[in-house]
C-alpha cells in the first residue's frame, strides 16, 4: 500500500517540486511543526506515536521535553502558551497517553489557551476494533476542543497541521487535537506544502463594528457611574496599553478579573481590583451600583457574576468579545461588540470624549475605605504562627523589585495570590481559571520557564495540588531548567473545600485533612533546593534566598491550618451578599 501511495504521490508532487524526495508521515509531522514556528514540544512516547519519535532527532530545531505524565505535558504546553502568547504543543501516544491529555485539553478549552495536541493512534485497519491502546480520542475531546482531526491519509498532514495551528491561534484561541494513525506516520509521500485551508465555516477576523463602537462611546460619555471590567481577551490581544489609554482618557475605574490580572496595573489610581466570589467589597458594590459596565474580553463567568439575575442590576452592558457566542450567554447585553479587544479599545479611545468620573470614583473610594480590603488578613489570632498573608506580603514586597511570572494552582492560595499580590504586567499571572484544575501549576511552570528562560517563574500552590503533579520537577532537572521557584502554602487541608465545609457545612471536614511527605526532603530527593519555613520571621530571608538561587527551589510554608479567603460570596447568592468574616456580612 505504501509503495503505491509513494508512486502516486511522487507523480503528483513532481509538478510542484521535481527534486522533492518522499518523506515518512512522521517526518512530515515534524516538518509541519517546524514550519509552524514550533521550537519546544512536551510529551511522552509510546507505541502508536513511535514513528514520530523516530523522526524527531532529525529535527534539532524541535526541542522535545520528556514529561513524567501526559497531564504534565499538556499543562506545560499551556504554561508555554500563556507565558509566550504562542501555541503550546504536546504529544502523547494512543489510549492512556491520549486520555491523560484530556484534563489539560479541557483546561485550555475553558481558558481559551492556544494549544495543539498530537496523539498517535492505532493503524487505520485496527480502528474501531478495540486494538491494544486504542481509544476514540477524537470522540472523547469533541466537546472540549475548538476542532479535532483523525488523520488517515498522509496527504492530509500538511493541510491538517496548518489548519490546526491557524484554528488554535486565531479568533478565540483554544485547543486543537490531531490524532494520527500509526500507518500514516510510517508510510511515505512527497509533502505538498502549498496547502489550501478547507475551512468554509470558520470566519476570518471580525470586522470592526463601528456602529456598536460609536454607540458604546456615547454611553461611555454620558454614564454617571461607569465601570470597565477587563478579562483575558485584553491580554491575548495585547490590548493593555489601549485599555490604559481608555481608562485615563475617561477617568473610568477598572476592574480586572482573575484572568485579566496584569491587563491593568493594580497600582494604577483607577484600579479597583478583582470582582466576584472573592472580590473586594467595594468592587462588588460598585458593580451593583454602576449604570454602565464595559466588559472587555471577559465571559461573565459565574464566579464573577454570582447570581446572574441580580448582577449589575442598574447597568447598561457593553460586551466586547472575540467570540460572538458569548453575547447573552450568561448576562443580558445592551451593546454587543464582536471583535478583537485591542482593536475595539483603540477605536473607543478615538471615539470617546475626554471626561472625568470624579464623583463616582470618590464614592467608590469611600466604599473602599469603609470596607477596607485585606482587613480580615490583618487580624492575627492569639498564638498564631505563620499566616498565609505573611508569605504574600513578603512576596509582594520583593516582587516590586524583582519582576517575575507567577503560576498559581487552584484553591485558597490562588485566591490569596489574586487578592494580595499587585499585578502590573500582562502574562505575569498565569492560573487555571475556568476549569479549576488542581495540579496545573508545577507543569505549567515548566512550560513558562522554557518560554521565558530569562525570567524567574514562581509557582504558588497548595499542598493538595502540589501532590498531584510535582513529578514534573524531575523533568525540570533533566531538562536543566533552573528558573522555577515553588512556594507551597501548606495547611494540611484541601483548603478551599475545608473552608466551604467550615462556612456552609457546619465544619464537617469530610475528606479534606491531608498529609504529605516532607516537601523539603522531597525537593532534595529530586536534586533541588528544599526549605521548610515555619515562622513569620524566616519568610523574607528564605524567599530572598530562593529568588537568588541558581536552580529550582521548593519552599514548604507551614501555615496556620484554618485560615479563610475573605470576602466570600456564598455560591448561588448575588455578589452584593458578601461574608467578610465568619458570620459577618459586609
Amino acid at each position, binding site marked *: 500500500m505504501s509503495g503505491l501511495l509513494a508512486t502516486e504521490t511522487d507523480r503528483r508532487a513532481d509538478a510542484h517540486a521535481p527534486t522533492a524526495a518522499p518523506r515518512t508521515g512522521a517526518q512530515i509531522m515534524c516538518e509541519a511543526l517546524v514550519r509552524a514556528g514550533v521550537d519546544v514540544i512536551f510529551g511522552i512516547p509510546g507505541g502508536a506515536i513511535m514513528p514520530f519519535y523516530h523522526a524527531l532527532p532529525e529535527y534539532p530545531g524541535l526541542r522535545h521535553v520528556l514529561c513524567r505524565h501526559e497531564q504534565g505535558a499538556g499543562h506545560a504546553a499551556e504554561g508555554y502558551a500563556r507565558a509566550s502568547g504562542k501555541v503550546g504543543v504536546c504529544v502523547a501516544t494512543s489510549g492512556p497517553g491520549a486520555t491523560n491529555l484530556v484534563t489539560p485539553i479541557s483546561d485550555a478549552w475553558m481558558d481559551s489557551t492556544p494549544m495543539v495536541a498530537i496523539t498517535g493512534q492505532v493503524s487505520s485497519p485496527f480502528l474501531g476494533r478495540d486494538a491494544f491502546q486504542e481509544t476514540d480520542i477524537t470522540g472523547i475531546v469533541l466537546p472540549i476542543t475548538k476542532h479535532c482531526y483523525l488523520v488517515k491519509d498522509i496527504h492530509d498532514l500538511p493541510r491538517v497541521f496548518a489548519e490546526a495551528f491557524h*484554528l488554535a491561534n486565531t479568533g478565540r484561541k483554544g485547543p486543537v487535537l490531531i490524532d494520527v494513525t500509526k500507518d500514516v506516520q510510517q508510510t511515505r509521500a512527497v509533502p505538498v506544502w502549498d496547502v489550501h485551508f478547507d475551512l468554509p465555516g470558520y470566519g476570518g477576523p471580525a470586522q470592526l463594528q463601528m456602529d456598536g463602537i460609536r454607540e458604546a462611546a456615547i454611553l461611555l460619555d454620558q454614564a454617571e457611574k461607569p465601570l470597565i471590567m477587563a478579562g483575558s481577551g485584553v491580554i491575548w490581544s495585547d490590548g493593555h496599553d489601549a485599555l490604559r489609554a481608555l481608562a485615563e482618557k475617561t477617568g473610568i475605574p477598572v476592574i480586572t478579573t482573575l484572568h485579566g490580572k496584569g491587563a491593568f496595573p493594580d497600582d494604577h489610581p483607577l484600579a479597583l481590583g478583582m470582582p466576584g466570589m472573592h472580590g473586594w467589597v467595594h468592587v462588588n458594590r460598585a458593580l451593583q451600583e454602576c449604570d454602565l459596565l464595559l466588559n472587555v474580553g471577559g465571559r461573565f463567568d459565574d464566579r464573577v457574576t454570582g447570581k446572574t439575575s441580580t448582577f449589575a442590576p442598574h447597568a447598561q452592558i457593553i460586551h466586547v468579545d472575540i467570540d460572538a457566542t458569548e453575547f447573552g450567554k450568561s448576562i443580558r447585553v445592551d451593546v454587543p461588540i464582536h471583535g478583537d479587544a485591542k482593536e475595539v479599545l483603540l477605536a473607543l479611545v478615538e471615539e470617546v470624549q475626554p471626561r472625568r468620573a470624579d464623583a463616582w470614583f470618590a464614592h467608590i473610594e469611600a466604599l473602599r475605605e469603609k470596607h477596607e480590603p485585606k482587613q480580615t488578613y490583618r487580624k492575627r489570632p492569639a498564638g498564631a504562627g505563620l499566616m498565609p498573608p505573611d508569605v504574600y506580603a513578603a512576596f509582594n514586597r520583593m516582587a516590586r523589585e524583582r519582576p517575575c511570572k507567577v503560576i498559581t494552582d487552584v484553591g485558597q492560595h490562588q485566591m490569596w495570590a489574586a487578592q494580595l499580590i499587585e499585578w502590573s504586567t500582562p502574562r505575569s499571572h498565569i492560573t487555571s481559571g475556568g476549569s479549576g484544575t488542581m495540579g496545573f501549576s508545577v507543569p505549567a511552570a515548566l512550560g513558562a520557564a522554557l518560554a521565558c528562560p530569562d525570567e524567574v517563574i514562581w509557582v504558588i500552590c497548595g499542598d493538595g495540588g502540589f501532590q498531584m503533579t510535582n513529578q514534573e520537577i524531575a523533568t525540570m532537572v533533566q531538562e536543566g531548567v533552573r528558573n522555577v521557584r515553588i512556594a507551597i502554602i501548606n495547611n494540611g487541608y484541601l483548603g478551599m473545600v475545608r473552608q466551604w465545609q467550615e462556612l456552609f457545612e457546619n465544619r464537617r471536614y469530610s475528606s479534606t485533612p491531608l498529609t504529605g511527605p516532607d516537601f523539603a526532603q522531597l525537593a532534595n530527593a529530586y536534586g533541588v533546593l528544599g526549605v521548610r519555613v515555619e515562622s513569620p520571621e524566616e519568610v523574607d530571608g528564605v524567599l530572598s534566598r530562593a529568588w537568588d538561587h541558581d536552580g529550582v527551589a521548593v519552599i514548604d510554608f507551614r501555615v496556620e491550618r484554618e485560615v479563610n479567603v475573605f470576602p466570600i460570596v456564598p455560591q448561588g447568592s448575588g455578589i452584593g451578599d458578601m461574608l467578610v468574616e465568619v458570620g459577618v456580612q459586609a
Partner: protein
Amino acid sequence: MSRSNGAHSSRHTIVALLQDHPGALNRAVSLFRRRGYNICSVNVGPSEVDGISRVTLTVDADDVNPVVQQLDRLVEIVRVNNVTTLPRLERETALVRVRAADTRAEIAAIVAACSGRVLDVSADSMMVEQTATPREIDDFIELLRPYGIEELSRSGCIAMVRPPRNPITD
C-alpha cells in the same frame, strides 16, 4: 421519542449547512446532548453545494438560541438558522406497515384520502407511504393506528424558508 424538557420547552426547527466530514454531525448534535435536550428528528443529506450537507433538526427545548450560537461557532458548520418563527415549508415522509387482511379497502381509502400511496400489499399487511407536513403525518398515523401498525419509519422533518413574497418591500 419526543420528550418534554421542562415546563417552558417547545418545538424548534433548526437548519444547518455543514461540511460533509466524518464527525461533523456528531459535533453538532453533541451540543444538544450536553444540555440534556432531546432531538426529536434529524435529517441529513446533500445540499446544493458539493461537499456541504444540509441538516434539519427538530428539538424540544426551553431556550434553543444559545445552542444555535454554539453551532455557528463549530468549525465545520458553514451556516445555521433557527427557522422556527420564519415562514417555511416543512415536509416529512413516513413509511407505515399496517395490519390488513379484510380491511385493505378501508385502509386504501384512508391512504387515498390523505394523498398517500400504497406501496406494497401482502397477505396480512400493507405498506403505505405519505409525504406531508409532520403534523399531517401525525394525523395519518393516528388514522391507521386502530388497524394495527406493525412497523413505522419517519424520515424526519426537512424545512426550507420561503423567499419573501415581495423582495422590494420585505
